[in-house]
């Protein structure tokens, strides 16, 4: 639209009039009328118009073939019209020239401003639409660009790969969700979804595909969201008025949608990557859990306990935990670290992980030992009959034979007890072990061997538990393997602490743990939480074949001792106790017979106890 009245400045026109009017007869006046307004009116002495002008000459002013105004000259009676007409023509020509120049300047400026607008919009959109890597946030940011003045309703539908349809991902407007669900079920929507270019419908009632499903919708603007040639979804804007959307609105929407589509694609790709990574993590942790019945479910439950403790620490109003904030990244890091904390066990031989008895190898070798005893028993029986055949006195050989059997039974029972690893093996018992071992038995080829091999003696003599030194080293190595394995994963910045959190779960606050012997100050709060979560889960695990599930009070008692020994973090343990984190976890995961009363008064908070 031409706004000619803006093109000529009254001051400038006045100056032109001042130059020309003196050349006209006294009493002449000039008037400039533009865009239906009288812009300047002036007589030759710069005063008001004089009544009774005898002739009026009109010089039209034109722009783009249209009359936009006129210069009017009022001349007194008796003027020499011809000369005045030439002067008027000259003045009109000047005004016309100026008008055209200004018109041109304004069109260039208007065009430039449109580019400015587009550039500013792009600049803002690129920033606002790329703030988040969450698809929902991208959609929200896109809709926010329209929800002020541009439309009464707006929605983004996103293509859902699993259902093959489009899901309403975000919307604005009065009862927008209901409105757009109705819209989605319309024939018009089905038609638009299939299209690859956007457009405007000025009056929905004129569309044969629209049955007025949403009475409020009178006009519509829609656009497919396309990135890299792939249709990701659709933007729909609706207005309660007909003829609401202009070509400029569509252009603006196109600019925003192109940016939004790219951002949406990035967000979807990122979400897919994350999902894939999480499933990999789950595969590994499931594999560790599945490897051994002794730790089944451990890698699934430790993350839960760890996050429950972390949540409590996050909300704790204490200086001790200042600096720990459980934001989304921290939560993800801790969860992944907790799921993978035992991943080194994947490479630990299961005969070590599962070594329930001292003579367990791939098989429990106590049965081989028992077989040898059987050989000895039969040797004894053989000796008995041989003596009998040689005419020995039955009574005395019977007594010797029975004594021998009793002795063998006693020895085997002793060895079996040693093998279970349930009790401490004293040095006297080791001597007995060695004396039993010195007995000899004869194999099928008639060769004799000691009853127990060196290796069997070595294992049976293990003082505590079932693992010998080498095997204990292998177990401890799982923490090293965890570190080695995790350090090969190039974690993104947000997950850069996974290895540190996961690797420290066997460290002790006094620095006597493994693999690095780190002390409390060298371990982060999340790493210290892992230590507690790992121990608590191990103590209360309901599915360990070698012992009954521990009760809460028993687990807390043991952990309290670990606190006093400065193995676990005292502050965290105190919080674990005072905030009853153990109970919240127990109610979710432990059997009713494990949940007994924990007498908190037995475990005062603080360092000295």
């Amino acid at each position: 639209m031409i706004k000619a009245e803006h093109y000529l400045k009254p001051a400038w026109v006045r100056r032109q009039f001042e130059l020309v009017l003196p050349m006209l007869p006294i009493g002449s006046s000039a008037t400039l009328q533009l865009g239906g307004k009288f812009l300047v009116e002036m007589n030759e002495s710069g005063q008001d118009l004089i009544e009774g002008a005898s002739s009026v000459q009109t010089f039209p002013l034109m722009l783009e073939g249209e009359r936009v105004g006129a210069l009017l000259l009022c001349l007194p009676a008796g003027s020499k019209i011809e000369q005045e007409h030439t002067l008027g023509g000259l003045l009109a020509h000047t005004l016309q020239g100026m008008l055209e120049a200004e018109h041109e300047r304004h069109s260039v400026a208007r065009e430039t401003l449109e580019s400015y607008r587009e550039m500013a919009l792009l600049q803002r959109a690129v920033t606002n639409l790329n703030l988040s890597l969450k698809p929902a946030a991208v959609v929200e940011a896109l809709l926010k660009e329209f929800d002020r003045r541009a439309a009464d309703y707006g929605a983004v539908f996103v293509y859902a790969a699993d259902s093959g349809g489009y899901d309403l991902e975000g919307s604005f407007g009065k009862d927008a969700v209901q409105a757009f669900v109705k819209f989605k079920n319309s024939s018009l929507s089905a038609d638009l979804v299939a299209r690859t270019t956007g457009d405007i419908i000025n009056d929905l009632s004129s569309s044969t595909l629209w049955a007025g499903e949403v009475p409020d919708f009178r006009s519509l603007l829609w656009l497919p969201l396309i990135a890299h040639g792939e249709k990701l979804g659709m933007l729909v804007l609706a207005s309660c008025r007909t003829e609401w959307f202009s070509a400029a609105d569509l252009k603006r929407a196109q600019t925003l949608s192109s940016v939004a589509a790219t951002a949406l694609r990035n967000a979807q790709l990122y979400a897919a990557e994350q999902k894939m990574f999480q499933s990999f993590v789950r595969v590994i942790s499931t594999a560790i859990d599945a490897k051994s019945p002794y730790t089944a479910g451990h890698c699934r439950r430790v993350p839960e306990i760890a996050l429950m403790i972390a949540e409590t620490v996050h909300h704790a109003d204490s200086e001790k935990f200042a600096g720990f904030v459980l934001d989304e990244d921290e939560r993800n890091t801790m969860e992944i670290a907790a799921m993978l904390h035992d991943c080194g066990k994947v490479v630990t031989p299961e005969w070590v992980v599962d070594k329930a008895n001292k003579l367990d190898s791939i098989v429990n070798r106590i049965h081989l030992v028992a077989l040898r005893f059987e050989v000895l028993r039969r040797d004894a029986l053989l000796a008995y009959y041989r003596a009998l055949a040689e005419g020995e006195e039955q009574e005395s050989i019977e007594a010797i034979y029975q004594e021998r059997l009793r002795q063998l039974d006693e020895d085997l029972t002793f060895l079996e007890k040693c093998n279970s690893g349930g009790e401490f093996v004293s040095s006297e018992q080791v001597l007995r072990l060695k004396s039993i071992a010195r007995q000899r038995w004869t194999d099928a080829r008639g060769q004799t061997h000691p009853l127990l091999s060196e290796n069997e003696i070595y294992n049976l003599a293990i003082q505590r538990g079932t693992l010998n030194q080498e095997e204990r080293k292998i177990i401890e190595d799982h923490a090293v393997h965890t570190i080695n394995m995790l350090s090969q994963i190039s974690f993104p910045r947000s997950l850069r602490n996974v290895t540190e959190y996961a690797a420290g779960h066997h460290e002790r606050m006094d620095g006597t743990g493994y693999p690095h012997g780190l002390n409390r100050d060298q371990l982060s709060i999340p790493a210290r939480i892992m230590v507690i979560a790992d121990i608590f889960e191990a103590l209360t695990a309901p599915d360990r074949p070698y012992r009954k599930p521990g009760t809460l009070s028993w687990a807390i008692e043991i952990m309290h001792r670990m606190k006093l020994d400065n193995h676990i973090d005292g502050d965290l343990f105190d919080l674990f106790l005072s905030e009853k984190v153990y109970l919240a976890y127990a109610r979710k995961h432990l059997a009713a017979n494990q949940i007994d009363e924990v007498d908190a008064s037995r475990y005062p908070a603080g360092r000295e106890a």
Partner: protein
Amino acid sequence: MSKNAKIAIVDDEVHIRSLLEQTLEDLEGEPEILMAVNGLEGLALIEREQPQLVFLDMMMPLMNGYDVCAAVRKNPALADVIIVMLTAKGQESDRVRGLEAGANRFVTKPFDPDEILDLAREILGCP
């Protein structure tokens, strides 16, 4: 907006003046748009016309935007003049200087026409 609202544009660059003028012509109520091409002329214009709103460039010949701004702020008769400073993108220190000189708002060049319109509407009290 009152019918005779006045807006001054003080900038030595002709295209900025043109574009600002063009933008402001879209305002409701047809405010009078005045222009000056340097700081000295701008200060004289502001003192003479007492506009409600001034778009003021920072770097100008004869007298820069800060000095114009400071001079306007010293004049009690011009206490109500709202000064919007035009700054080049990314010069945070300019803003600090502008604030010290008494500028009310800032717009970075190249400006967003819609941002200018929103700003003018807000300052002049348009619906």
